[in-house]
């Protein structure tokens, strides 16, 4: 960190905007460096780690999580949180799989169905948080149990097995593009699309604005309730899509599908540099965070380390990443203040 502090001193000549961008880039490159280091450690410890086959397995595992992490990141950017992502995925996956099992000739409208269900579930969250003025944690904690409960009630203890699902659904995720799994291609497309939306479209910029300073955005004339609702709706949409992908990937859809993903998605987003206090971070960072988690998972499995160590490491890494974020935030604030003083003195 001292390196950063030294660099801030001559930053007087540099415009403020580029400095914060630099810090953000530093954060993302920090994730990349962390990914590289963990990869290096695992490849030294076990020879099976650094193979093409394993790399594609890691990428496939990270793919769906990265979409959910992107959804989580959008909500986090508005200073809110969504712990119902796993339940939204589960409910969407079960409903769509059940629909597909009942209508064997269903086509691509299944994707549309998943998106609509996800959008509706996300919008309910958004309405509660934005217009009900319920604390986002409480609201989504409640809907987490509500959506999961509905899944149980709808399923009546049944599950949708893979032989009831349409063939194209199961095959499409196993396809490969020049050796790259289809799942990874889809995830890269989705994440890039969302990143572009957030970076280059006015509505996307508003999401950042509301998160970084809600009061200022009100004064500026943004209707923050709409923006929060949009963020939750978008998050739900992505979760619905991820739920469908997950159903297609695992084949057998049970009622507990994707439970516990709220934790993983938050871990991925926070590790990827999305600030829990809102307004800072990128969707691409969150996707990289998912890749980090998948790499750690994979390495631990290859090393034969028990599964519960993963919980411990995942939890600790959330705390560590949050600590790093706050640390960087303090540095940035100090640097900006320094600039302001320097400018006033000049």
């Amino acid at each position, binding site marked *: 960190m001292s390196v950063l502090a030294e660099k801030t001193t001559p930053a007087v000549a540099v415009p403020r905007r580029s400095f914060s961008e630099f810090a953000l880039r530093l954060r993302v490159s920090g994730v990349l460096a962390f990914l590289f280091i963990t990869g290096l450690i695992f490849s030294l410890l076990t020879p099976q780690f650094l193979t093409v086959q394993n790399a594609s397995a890691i990428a496939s595992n990270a793919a769906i999580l990265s979409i959910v992490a992107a959804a989580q990141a959008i909500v986090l950017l508005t200073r809110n949180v969504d712990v119902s992502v796993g339940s939204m995925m589960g409910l969407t996956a079960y409903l769509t799989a059940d629909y597909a099992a009942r209508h064997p000739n269903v086509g691509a409208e299944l994707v549309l169905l998943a998106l609509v269900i996800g959008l509706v579930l996300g919008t309910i969250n958004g309405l509660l948080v934005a217009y009900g003025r319920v*604390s986002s*944690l409480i609201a989504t*904690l409640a809907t987490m149990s*509500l959506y999961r409960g509905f899944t*149980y009630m709808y399923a009546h203890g049944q599950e949708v097995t893979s032989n009831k699902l349409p063939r194209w659904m199961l095959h499409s995720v196993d396809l490969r593009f020049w050796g790259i799994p289809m799942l990874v291609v889809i995830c890269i497309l989705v994440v890039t699309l969302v990143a572009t939306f957030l970076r280059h479209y006015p509505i996307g910029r508003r999401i950042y604005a509301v998160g970084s300073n809600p009061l200022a955005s009100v004064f500026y004339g943004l209707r923050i309730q709409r923006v929060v609702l949009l963020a939750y709706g978008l998050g739900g949409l992505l979760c619905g899509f991820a739920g469908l992908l997950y159903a297609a990937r695992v084949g057998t859809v049970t009622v507990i599908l994707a439970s516990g993903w709220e934790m993983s998605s938050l871990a991925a987003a926070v590790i990827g540099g999305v600030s*829990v206090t809102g307004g800072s971070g990128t969707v691409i960072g969150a996707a990289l965070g998912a890749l980090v988690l998948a790499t750690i998972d994979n390495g631990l499995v290859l090393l034969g380390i028990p599964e519960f160590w993963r919980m*411990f490491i995942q939890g600790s890494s959330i705390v560590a990443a*949050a*600590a790093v974020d706050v640390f960087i935030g303090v540095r940035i604030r100090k640097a900006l203040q320094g600039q302001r003083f320097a400018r006033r003195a000049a």
Partner: protein
Amino acid sequence: MKRRWNWRLSQWEMMLAILTLAAGVWSAQLSPYYLNLDQIADSTRQFIFPGLLALGLMIVVVLGEIDISLASTLAVGSVLFSKFSACHVQVWFAFPIVIVVCGFLGALNGVLVAGLRLPSLAVTLGTMGAYRGLAFIIGSEKGYTDFDDSYLWVGSERVLGDIMPVSFILFVIVSLVVGFIMHFTVFGRRCFAVGHNKDAAWFSGIKVQTLKIQAYALAGALAALAALVWVGQYGSARGDNADGAILFVVTAVVLGGVDINGGKGTVLGVVLALFLLGTIRNGMGLANIAGPTQTVVLGGLLIIGVLLPVLSAVASHIRHFLPRRATPK
């Protein structure tokens, strides 16, 4: 102004008490087995361990923070008890150690939140996973069931003519103590002050960071107590103990009228909310309503609980537009 505020508060608690009675009547209608002293005494057990967690969480929430790692702290506590029991250590020796360890885990949350100024949600979400992992690491994946009888006494035995569960008496004592701490001591007043306006509290000389760390430590220690109750009730300890119980705990705290943004709430409200939730759960259980449905009801209650202020605001808004009656002199 102050009197009006007090009146509103007692109104809320009255409503909880009335709802509890209504739920009891409803349960009696649903099942002929409900109105039975033995059954009712037994049913209190269902909310003792979440109740102890809720009392701890309430202190933290009054300060304007949140701790969702408490259920995982409980798991660490119960696994530690199992380790001590396996070594044939008497419970009176093991208990203080577990209290200290769990209090330390809580204090660690507090240090991260108050000392490093991290957002409490992110911290406790992280430690929720980390502590649960820790519980598994300490206790391995296998459960432990061969508890020494001395460990089971608090959670399973009954006294006073074989009716009153020990755990219930423990709960009453603990809630009285927490009520005293929160409403009649300097510590409690400071907690409310910090939760109401952190900056003003800091300017008036309250050590906000120390206070927060103490509150988190207290919540952790209460989780250790809850772990002892858990061990007695279920006779088993494993890393996934009380997984998912945090929903019930948060529901109780919010439904009890504790403001999630801090600074408002009473221990009495939390206790009454626990009774209400316990009665509803017991009634639904007797009426053969499946677990998932119960979860849906719980989630719905949580939403209603937090939406109530908004709904009442909307109602008063509507009343504002209605033709006014002449105000009685």
